[in-house]
């Protein structure tokens, strides 16, 4: 299949030997595992002949930067919107913010990307239409639009959960006690309400990391960025199996690491879970 329809018998046979497909299945699997454990590599790419690990690592920075920027944007915007919505409960602002998830639920990430390109890239020319810039400040500048797109897909669910959590905390007994004791509203909001609401929102972010990465891969395609996403899609069209497995493995690894960080942070934030008798 890879060699195309007219491959001769020998060519197919030599390819099989090169790929190790001629070995018994058990041995193939062992070699595959040893490869991963030893040098984190799921075999060399069929197309580019280099090990998939190197391929992924050299494309990773763009994607990681994009995910980082998107996360930062998502948290800041979600926090701002949630505070506004919770403090102005049932006001015009609150309704507006509550409509947000409904409208954005049906928005495919790449479509949002295309819209932003059209508005900010083509019409207003604020941002470059594609490409990841030459690195440093220029890269951040050119990744802003994609980052906004990815963040956009995360914000609604974050806002909804943060707002619900803050409302519950604002109505809880200890906030009433603090108000009765005359502590200024601002202090209560920052020191007590936010801290108690941060934990569930953090958990949600941890759970959504997988969707975040999925979204990033797709947005790279829409913006033509040379990150892991485009590597994946080219690997798909060329049936480049090892690379696909490699990307899947690295994404899963990244998600597990994020999950671990969230667990540690929540242990630190909430003393109840820390070493209880």
């Amino acid at each position, binding site marked *: 299949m890879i060699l195309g329809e007219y491959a001769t018998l020998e060519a197919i046979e030599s390819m099989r030997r090169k790929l190790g497909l001629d070995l018994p299945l058990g041995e193939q699997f062992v070699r595959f595992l040893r490869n991963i454990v030893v040098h984190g590599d799921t075999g060399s790419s069929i197309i580019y002949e280099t090990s998939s690990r190197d391929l992924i690592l050299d494309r990773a920075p763009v994607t990681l930067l994009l995910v980082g920027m998107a996360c930062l944007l998502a948290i800041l915007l979600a926090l701002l919107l949630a505070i506004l919505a919770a403090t102005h409960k049932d006001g015009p602002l609150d309704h507006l913010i509550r409509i947000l998830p409904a409208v*954005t639920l*049906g*928005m*495919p990430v790449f479509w949002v990307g*295309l819209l932003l390109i059209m508005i900010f890239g083509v019409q207003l020319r604020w941002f470059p239409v594609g490409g990841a810039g030459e690195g440093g400040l220029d890269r951040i500048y050119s990744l802003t639009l994609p980052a906004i797109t990815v963040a956009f897909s995360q914000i609604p669910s974050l806002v909804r959960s943060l707002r619900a959590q803050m409302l519950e905390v604002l109505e809880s007994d200890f906030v009433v006690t603090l108000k009765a004791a005359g502590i200024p509203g601002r202090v209560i909001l920052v020191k007590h309400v936010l801290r108690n609401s941060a934990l569930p929102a953090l958990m949600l972010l941890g759970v959504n990391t*997988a969707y975040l990465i999925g979204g990033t891969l797709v947005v790279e395609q829409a913006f033509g960025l040379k990150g892991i996403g485009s590597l994946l899609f080219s690997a798909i069209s060329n049936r480049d199996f090892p690379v*696909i497995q490699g990307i899947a493995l690295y994404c899963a690894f990244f998600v597990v690491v994020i999950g671990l960080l969230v667990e540690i942070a929540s242990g630190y934030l909430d003393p109840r879970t820390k070493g209880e008798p």
Partner: protein
Amino acid sequence: MSSAQPELRIRRASKLERSLKRIWSLPSLLWGCILLAILIAVALLAPIISPYHPSEQNMAAILQPPSSEHWLGTDQLGRDLFARLIYAARTDLKIMALAEIVPFCVGVFLGMVAGYYGKWADALITLATDTFIAFPFYLIVIIVAFVSGAGEKGIYITFMLVGWIVYARVVRGLSASLRKQEWIAAARTLGLPNIKIILRHLLPNVLPQAVVVLMTDMAVLLVAIVTLGYLGIGIAPPTPDWGTMISEGQPFISTKWWLSAAPGFAVVYAGIALSLIGDGLADLWRRK
């Protein structure tokens, strides 16, 4: 000294009348149903509404702007955009609905078993959910689509593998808290076998919340189907699909922006309808 028992003589509105009155009083649920009904109607009546066949090419009328003849203009092969849009609704909505059935049932059941039994059942199911959730959804869809070939089959299989997780997680949490409720303890004291308690007592209390999640999750699945179409590994052409329409329109984005925009808005419309119904149902059941 016993206090007199207040009489319960309130006119007994019939069950149907009561539920209709309740739906009427919930604007979000009402509007959600109306919007969805319109969408389904348009999809079903596509042959009647649209004068053109979706894949009927007309080389003479390529990339025409919206006109009285072609309400949304034509695409790069001269096909009527409006026709493609409503026929695409058929394929995408059908897949969305069908692909949700099995994951919904499996997810709800496994969630109840994990939440109710706890211990080994809970550990096993949580292990399964956590491993699957670690892989980004699109990645799994792509790999499965790659293995089983593009098209609907790939989407169904993937969603069978992954779609049940969101229900299992919600239902597991709910069942774990419901399990502590006293009416469950009363059922156990009565001697009811666990499986009867789960189906008779737990299911009716878990279902409402699961249906609310179903609404939002259907929109998420619809977006996934469209995304796969955009990436070219979803529904194979020529069957019309919103995703492929968007990717076909992308090259002309600066001049003919509506080619890509229109299918997107269709998905957004479906998203709004579904989330309105979801919010409405949540309020309805919370108030009962």
